[in-house]
């Protein structure tokens, strides 16, 4: 079995006993990347020289329990800034950008002696559900190279699924961790808004963005979140709420647990194979002693429209900073205004422009109340739906996505069809609550994700349920990469 499939505990135990070295782990990462990434396209930038140097130093120092991430190879979505290592957000506009500082999550990984393997592909500025909006190349799904890996953290999910790294960080604004995790058959957690510092995450929609881990297993996921969570003086929206020991929640015990299943999440538009996989998962949790009931989140159908108005509005403001003055690829012009316009028009891709346009329109004089303010009010109704249900139940469960991974090119020409794919993940961001996607089997040979949604700051219960299910179901989904070569 490849080392990466063994999980953090076994890997670190072997490091401790000197059965393996950190350099062996780094070798495995770059060997897998060399073997598969020409086809899959998960990485944008490799950190090979630095990673090998850090590995050598760690091997000389020897294993330390104090450093929680000691020797663990981690891939980073390319919208999280890494000092001295190119960070592009998969945008042509930033193709030469070298950050001057580390994001807080990166500082934490380095302090705890994790190894940064490289930067992962994504939809440009995290806008998209398929990785087709990358300014550089499309990432392919390791389960079927004709299909998308999901997005926007598609590179992160594909790299973990293909065994190139055992751990990755993604970001989730409307499903961008959970949807690719579901499509690639791995575990992806969007923590509660404020749980993880956003300092150094290039902002898309600041009231919705959250960084989270993508891993092979629930235990690995909980372990990585533990290492990156917590309040941060550099992010005033990070929450000063104690971070419990997530790994102690991984007991396998869900007796007496109350599960809500929203009827809106298994209704029209949900693929039959997905519905069956989720129903089987619920039956399995029932067999473990949990009880589930059908509930309603009545404003679910308004979530996609609400999200696109709010996220695009925030994006139009956040992306104003990309003007070619202080950084980025500038297009020369005779005057400043033309320089701005030429730089932005040449640097941004079609979807980013579409959202900047929508957001600028929704915030413009005469339309602000009708669109932006209205959407903020509907957001309140959606948030209340979750509050009402989570008052009576421990978790909410449904599918992560209505369908398994779709084909490359299938939805790219129709923005509204593409947006609809996020219908089950978007409400969670609007409400700010935590949610995980954990594999719950295959439909026509493609992975299906089970979404478990929890109360604010109760990631522990989400992990408890996800772990109990994962252990009982024992899927161990691994794509067959025999046909994929460098």
């Amino acid at each position: 079995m490849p080392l990466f499939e063994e999980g953090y505990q076994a890997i670190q135990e072997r490091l401790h006993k000197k059965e393996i070295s950190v350099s062996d782990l780094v070798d495995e990462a770059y060997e897998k990347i060399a073997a598969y990434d020409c086809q899959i396209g998960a990485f944008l930038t490799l950190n090979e020289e630095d990673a090998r140097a850090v590995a050598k130093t760690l091997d000389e120092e020897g294993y330390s329990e104090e450093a929680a991430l000691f020797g663990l190879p981690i891939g980073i979505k390319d919208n999280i800034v890494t000092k001295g290592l190119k960070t592009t957000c998969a945008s042509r506009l930033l193709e030469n950008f070298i950050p001057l500082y580390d994001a807080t999550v990166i500082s934490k990984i380095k302090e705890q002696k994790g190894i940064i393997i490289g930067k992962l592909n994504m939809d440009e500025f995290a806008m998209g559900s398929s990785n087709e909006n990358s300014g550089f190349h499309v990432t392919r799904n390791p389960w079927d190279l004709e299909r998308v890996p999901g997005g926007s953290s598609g590179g992160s999910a594909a790299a973990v699924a293909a065994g190139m790294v055992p751990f990755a960080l993604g970001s989730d604004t409307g499903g961008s961790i959970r949807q690719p995790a579901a499509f690639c058959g791995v575990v992806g957690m969007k923590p509660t808004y404020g749980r993880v510092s956003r300092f150094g995450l290039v902002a898309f929609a600041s009231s919705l963005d959250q960084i989270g881990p993508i891993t092979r297993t629930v235990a690995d996921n909980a372990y990585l979140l533990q290492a990156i969570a917590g309040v941060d003086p550099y992010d005033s929206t990070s929450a000063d709420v104690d971070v419990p020991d997530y790994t102690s929640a991984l007991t396998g015990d869900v007796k007496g647990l109350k599960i809500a299943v929203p009827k809106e999440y298994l209704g029209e538009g949900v693929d039959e194979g997905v519905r069956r996989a989720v129903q089987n998962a619920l039956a399995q949790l029932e067999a473990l002693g949990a009880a589930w009931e059908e509930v309603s989140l009545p404003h679910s159908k308004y979530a996609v429209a609400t999200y696109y108005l709010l996220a695009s509005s925030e994006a139009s403001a956040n992306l104003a900073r990309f003007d070619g003055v202080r950084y980025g690829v500038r297009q020369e012009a005779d005057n400043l205004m033309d320089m701005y316009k030429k730089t932005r028009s040449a640097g941004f891709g079609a979807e980013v422009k579409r959202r900047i346009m929508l957001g600028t329109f929704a915030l413009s004089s005469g339309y602000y109340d009708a669109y932006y303010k209205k959407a903020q009010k509907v957001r309140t109704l959606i948030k209340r739906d979750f509050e009402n249900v989570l008052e009576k139940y421990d978790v909410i469960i449904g599918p992560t996505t209505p369908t398994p991974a779709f084909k490359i090119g299938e939805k790219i020409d129709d923005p509204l069809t593409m947006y609809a794919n996020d219908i089950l993940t978007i409400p969670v961001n609007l409400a700010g609550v935590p949610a995980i996607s954990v594999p719950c089997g295959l439909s026509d040979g493609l992975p299906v994700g089970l979404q478990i949604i929890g109360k604010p700051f109760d990631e522990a219960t989400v992990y408890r349920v996800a772990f109990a299910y994962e252990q009982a179901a024992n899927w161990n989904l691994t794509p067959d990469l025999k046909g994929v070569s460098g």
Partner: protein
Amino acid sequence: MVARITKEQVEHVADLARLAFTDEEIAVFTKDLGDIIAFAEQLNELDTDGIEETTHVLNIANVMRPDEVRESISREEALLNAPDKRDGQVRVPNILEG
């Protein structure tokens, strides 16, 4: 169906957003934005009178910190990524006519 957004509006919004488009692109955006806005208008089915807006999910009030001098990046570092610079400053094209 009544056009929800006109070509002229799209041009105006593009100007506000500091984006330049060809005529063809303007035509595409006029359709795309019209479709998205039409879709968004389903929110009007909901009565939101008296509902407060959610700007932020956490009930965070002002977050204060002591006003202390801390380590910061140097001018030299700040200019590392600048496409055009001179004498320790960022250089841009003319901002005034004449």
